[in-house]
């Protein structure tokens, strides 16, 4: 398979903030990232991160009202970049929201681990939010690192 190299490829996706679209979103991003020749593990990591970000937009951003969630994904070299955004209520205190186990919706049994999972499974995570305007989560993951290690290692 030919490597994409430094060529940038990009895709955008907009869908209704309905929970049934969570699977659609992560599967679509997973399909998009296959051009980077990822390991199974890397695909699973990205799917988890996408699922967390999209779920946040639906539950917290839009509080289950039907609006639009946007995903922009692009490749640069061996990196996959992701932007998940909503025009929802926004996050008043991002630092607090990113604390492990912090949740504003304990009654929904949210574990408070959404951002922790995104942080753990991606290489970079950045959150931009303005109350009343919406939230954008930016993530980056270098893909194919594990495979290089595996294939260049002498047995």
């Amino acid at each position: 398979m030919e490597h994409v190299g430094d060529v940038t490829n990009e895709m955008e996706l907009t869908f209704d903030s309905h929970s049934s679209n969570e699977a659609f979103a992560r599967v679509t991003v997973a399909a998009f990232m296959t051009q980077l020749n990822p390991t199974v593990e890397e695909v699973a990591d990205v799917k988890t991160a996408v699922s967390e970000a999209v779920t946040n937009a639906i539950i917290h951003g839009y509080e289950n009202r039907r609006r639009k969630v946007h995903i922009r994904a692009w490749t640069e070299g061996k990196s996959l970049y992701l932007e998940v955004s909503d025009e929802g209520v926004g996050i008043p205190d991002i630092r607090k929201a990113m604390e492990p186990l912090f949740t504003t919706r304990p009654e929904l049994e949210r574990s408070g681990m959404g951002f922790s999972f995104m942080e753990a499974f991606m290489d970079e995570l950045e959150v931009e939010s303005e109350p009343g305007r919406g939230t954008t989560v930016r993530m980056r993951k270098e893909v194919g690192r594990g495979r290089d290690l595996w294939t260049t290692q002498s047995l």
Partner: protein
Amino acid sequence: MKYQVQENCLTIFLPEDVDHHNAEEIRREADRLIDREHIRYVIFDFADTGFMDSSGIGVIMGRYRKVYMMGGEVCAVHASERMKKILTMSGVMKIMQIYEEDK
């Protein structure tokens, strides 16, 4: 979703994807059975599960709180390497055992 009740033990056969979308249904159905059948032990069977995010962790912690108050426990079976990674990272292993072979 499939469930099995044996005395005071409930086995939940989790779906392929455990995300926010179907966490609601698992939670509702499990709680109904826990109350009606006086369940103390909940077994999460991951045999069919390939994907789980933090919503699934919420489901496990919620059911743990529910049965723990009555002296019960929760555990997991048939978890793949990926599921074990998710469960370990979440810290939920502190309250839940993973059994390798059949219960």
